[in-house]
Each structure stands twice: as structure tokens, then as C-alpha cells.
């Protein structure tokens, strides 16, 4: 095993060295081609002065340039624009593809993660051969192939209070393509402080949300479009926040939201709404304040798209009102604590050690009469479950229905009242909550019946008992 690991490691090293030298060769080639281009350009220098875009650019962007709302002016604005995409995942991939394709001048990407197999069904700029690559590198490689013209900037780190100012200030427009509440509040705050318009989108399961915030980009205290805190002043309780890994996500649902972010970005840039205020005052295009909308997408609804009208900035908003308590110093120094504000979930630890059973131990008592209560969602139960187990999803216990909590709706009448009940879930958190509820409802028959959870859930089952158990 060790020698296999060593040779795999050797191969990985060899691959990355080869890739590195390939990169260098490509850069050299690029240099030569660029030289050639500029040499030949010298001979037609007259034309160059005549036309603001290259011949290739007219061809490449012609189909969008002839749309009246873009035009040559819009195309030149795109070329001058610097756009930052924070998050190179399910939202960031489609957003970046269209924004790069449209010919933006500079595109920065922020992400500290690496590509994993479970990303590929939705993160369309990452391919199977790029598993374990840094997401920023994988994304930029795909974007360069799509359109080599923009300058791509990789920020291979997660956005944080410490790095947010130095990264965001280099750009004109920001897209929030991240996946958690803390980063959403942080990105909104830094965009208020640095006066950047923010296009924020999110998605989970079959639902998506899109809002354009801080448009026009104005400092705190001005009468402008709302920030994220105006719309959602109170973060959701941390234990109710569901990630795509836990809740699931349909690829094209998050894709639609990322594509919509690109639509908004192109609209905002080509209409000149991020130009410096001097130019804005001159053009008079941006004096009218349009109401801010939130677009809701629900793929399974009979009315999949809905727009709701939001208010302008909230009086007393922590970030953008005239009473703002936010400053660059308080943000970057860490005195605004985003993790604390949004709360955090420590691993669930409700049960005593004697109320828990190791997966390996459970496998040995399976021959005895007992009940295995699987509290995963039905869809997960359908993917894989153990023979004889009973499925009552965790959500059914949340409403507090009596016949669920006391077991009468799911325990077979034939079960002796001293037969054990083992509770299992995916990772061993929900199972603890349910075990506690069952005991509180008196299902343990005053200690006659053992009720406990399988520690670590099916993850532990896979590690300790059955390696073939599907990891989904």
C-alpha cells in the first residue's frame, strides 16, 4: 500500500512538473505571437488609430455589439471594466464564462478551494481531469481557452476581513458567488465601504435568489440602493443553515442564477452605471433611482420566476445608513466578527457516551431483535439503506408531532418493549437529536429499552463495516 502511495505521489509530482513546463512553453508561445501581432500592427498603425477594437474583437463581440443596448460604447465599457468574482463554484463558473466571453477587460477570481468530484455536475468550468487543481487555476485555464483577451487575476484564498479590502479595491464591480452567510455579510460590507455595486446570488436544491445591491455605488449615509444587511438584517440561526453538500443542488438551478448574475453585470457595465461619478453627472444616464428587485427562482413552482420589490436603504442600517458603525479599520482589524455574528455550529454533542454505539459494534448486534431508525430524508434512504431499517425523516421530528416522537406511528406493535432502538443518519448529528427526543417522550420505557445512536452515522459505517457503502 505504501509503495503504491509513493508511486502515485511520484506520478502526481511528475504531472504537476510537466504541467508547469507546459505552462511556461505556452507563455513563451504567447510572447512570440504577441510580438508577431504587434510587429504586424506597426505596418497598419494607421488602422489602429482608426478603430478602437482589434479586427478579432469586432468579430468576436459583433453579435452582442449590434444589440442596441450594448453598441460600441457598451463594448468599450466592458473592455475598460474590472470585475471580481468571489467563489469559483456553481454560481461563479457560469457567471465567469459569460462575463469573460463578453470581453470584460480584467476578471479577478477569489477561491481557496480545490476541485472535487462532487463539484462537477454544476461547476461547469472544471473538468474531470482537473480534480485536485486549485479552483482558481482550473477556472482561469478554461476561461483562457474561451477568450484569451481579458486579463485574468487569480486570488487563491478565501475572502476574509483581512484580505477583502486589498482584493476588492482593485475592481469596479463585484459578484458574490460564495456559499455561506458570513461571507455574504462581509462582501456586502466591504462593497459599501469601497463603494462598489454588488451582484449577489445564491441557490439551494431547486430555489435561487438574485439581488443587485448598492446600485448606484454610494457611500454610507447616501440615499441609495440597499445593502445585504438592509434586506436580511438578522442572519439565520447557524443550525438551520443548509449547504449544497447537505441539502443538495440541481446543477442548472444554480447555473441559472450564475447566468443571471452575468446578465446583470453586462447590463450594469454597458449602461455606464459603474463609471466614475464625474462621467455619470455628465451623461445624466444614472440620475433616476430604480427600485431594487429580488428575483426568486423556484424550479418546481407553477410560477418559477417572481420579482419582489425591495426598499431603499434601511434607516439605522449597521453598514450603509448615516448611523453606520462600520469602517475599514473595524472591518479589517477583525472587530466586526462575522463568524460570531452568524453563529457557528460545533459538532453536535448531546448524548452521553453510553447512549452511543460504534458502527462496528452495531454490526455485531444486528442479529438480535431491534429497530434501526434511519432519520435521513427519504431521497437519501432510497439511494441506500440497511435491510430492515425504518425511515422516519428528521424533519418529521421537528414539528413535534406526538405520534412521531413517541414512536406510535412507526414502531411495530409486535416489538417487545425491551428491544433496542438504534438511530442512524448520514453523519451522526441528527441521530443524536432524535435519540434525545425519543427518550424525552418516554420511549425507553423507564430504562427497560435501550435507545442510542450510531456514532458517526453511515460515514462511520462505511469506514468501519462496509467499504462498498455509496458515498453521495
Amino acid at each position: 500500500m505504501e509503495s503504491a502511495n509513493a508511486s502515485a505521489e511520484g506520478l502526481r509530482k511528475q504531472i504537476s512538473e510537466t504541467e508547469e513546463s507546459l505552462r511556461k512553453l505556452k507563455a513563451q508561445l504567447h510572447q512570440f505571437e504577441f510580438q508577431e501581432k504587434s510587429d504586424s500592427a506597426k505596418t497598419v498603425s494607421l488602422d489602429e488609430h482608426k478603430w478602437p477594437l482589434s479586427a478579432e474583437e469586432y468579430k468576436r463581440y459583433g453579435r452582442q455589439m449590434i444589440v442596441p443596448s450594448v453598441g460600441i460604447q457598451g463594448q468599450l465599457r466592458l473592455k475598460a471594466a474590472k470585475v471580481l468574482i468571489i467563489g469559483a463554484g456553481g454560481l461563479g463558473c457560469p457567471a465567469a464564462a459569460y462575463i469573460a466571453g463578453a470581453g470584460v477587460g480584467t476578471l479577478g477570481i477569489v477561491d481557496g478551494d480545490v476541485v472535487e468530484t462532487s463539484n462537477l455536475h454544476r461547476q461547469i468550468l472544471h473538468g474531470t481531469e482537473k480534480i485536485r487543481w486549485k479552483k482558481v487555476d482550473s477556472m482561469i485555464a478554461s476561461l483562457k481557452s474561451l477568450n484569451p483577451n481579458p486579463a485574468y487575476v487569480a486570488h487563491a484564498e478565501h475572502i476574509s476581513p483581512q484580505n477583502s479590502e486589498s482584493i476588492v479595491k482593485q475592481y469596479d464591480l463585484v459578484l458574490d458567488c460564495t456559499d455561506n452567510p458570513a461571507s455574504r455579510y462581509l462582501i456586502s460590507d466591504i462593497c459599501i465601504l469601497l463603494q462598489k455595486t454588488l451582484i449577489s446570488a445564491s441557490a439551494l436544491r431547486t430555489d435561487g435568489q438574485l439581488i443587485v445591491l448598492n446600485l448606484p455605488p454610494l457611500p454610507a449615509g447616501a440615499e441609495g440602493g440597499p445593502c445585504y444587511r438592509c434586506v436580511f438584517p438578522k442572519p439565520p440561526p447557524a443550525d438551520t443553515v443548509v449547504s449544497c453538500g447537505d441539502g443538495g443542488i440541481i446543477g442548472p438551478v444554480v447555473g441559472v442564477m450564475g447566468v443571471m448574475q452575468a446578465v446583470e453585470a453586462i447590463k450594469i457595465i454597458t449602461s455606464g452605471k459603474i463609471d466614475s461619478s464625474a462621467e455619470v453627472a455628465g451623461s445624466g444616464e444614472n440620475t433616476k433611482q430604480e427600485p431594487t428587485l429580488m428575483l426568486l427562482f423556484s424550479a418546481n413552482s407553477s410560477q418559477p420566476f417572481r420579482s419582489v420589490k425591495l426598499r431603499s436603504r434601511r434607516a439605522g442600517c449597521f453598514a450603509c445608513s448615516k448611523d453606520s458603525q462600520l469602517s475599514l479599520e473595524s472591518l479589517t482589524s477583525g472587530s466586526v466578527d462575522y463568524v460570531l455574528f452568524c453563529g457557528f455550529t460545533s459538532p453536535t454533542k448531546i448524548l452521553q457516551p453510553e447512549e452511543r454505539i460504534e458502527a462496528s459494534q452495531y454490526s455485531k448486534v444486528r442479529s438480535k431483535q431491534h429497530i434501526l431508525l434511519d432519520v435521513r430524508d427519504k431521497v437519501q434512504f432510497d439511494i441506500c439503506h440497511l435491510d430492515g431499517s425504518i425511515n422516519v425523516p428528521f424533519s418529521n421530528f421537528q414539528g413535534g408531532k406526538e405520534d412521531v416522537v413517541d414512536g406510535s406511528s412507526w414502531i411495530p406493535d409486535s416489538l417487545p418493549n425491551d428491544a433496542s432502538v438504534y438511530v442512524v443518519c448520514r453523519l451522526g448529528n441528527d441521530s443524536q437529536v432524535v435519540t434525545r427526543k425519543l427518550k424525552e417522550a418516554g420511549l425507553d420505557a423507564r430504562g427497560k429499552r435501550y435507545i442510542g445512536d450510531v456514532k458517526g452515522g453511515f460515514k462511520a459505517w462505511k469506514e468501519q463495516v462496509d467499504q462498498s457503502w455509496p458515498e453521495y
Partner: protein
Amino acid sequence: MAPIGHFTVLYFASASSYTLKDSEFLPTPLPLSKLFDHLDQRYKGMKAKVLESCLVTLNLEYVDVPESATDGQDLIIKEGDEVAIIPPVSSG
């Protein structure tokens, strides 16, 4: 369309997972300040777990849900109105 004497409430994202519904009809009139308590009675724990961090709209426009009915500015949800409960979705 809501039946006579009712309004429609739409549940998005986690509000939909909590109620196991996309929408339902509730009796009118209902003061907006009573909405959260009313829903919390129907769905135990929903106020703290979901509603307090939600955006609420009435007929597609943002409304502030008053903490109590004492400030005299309470809106009344009327027959045929459409209320949407929109929790923040943060993943992506």
C-alpha cells in the same frame, strides 16, 4: 386564488422545508404584527428558526413586520392578499 375570507401565503426555501408546503390559504383579516405568532402556532418553533431572519413581502412589496401592534402602523392582511415568506438562501 385564495377562497373568500382568505389570503395566500407563499413559503420559499427553508420556510417551505419547515412547513412541508409551497403555499397555503389562511383566514383574513390578520394584522401583520400577528403573522409570525400565527405561523409559529401552526408550525412549532418556526418563528425563531425561520421567520425572524426572513424577508416578508405583501403583494410583491417588502414590508417590515412590526414587533408588536402598539405602534399604530400595523398593516392588516386582507382577503386576496399574497404574503411571501422569503428566508435568505446563502449557499451556491
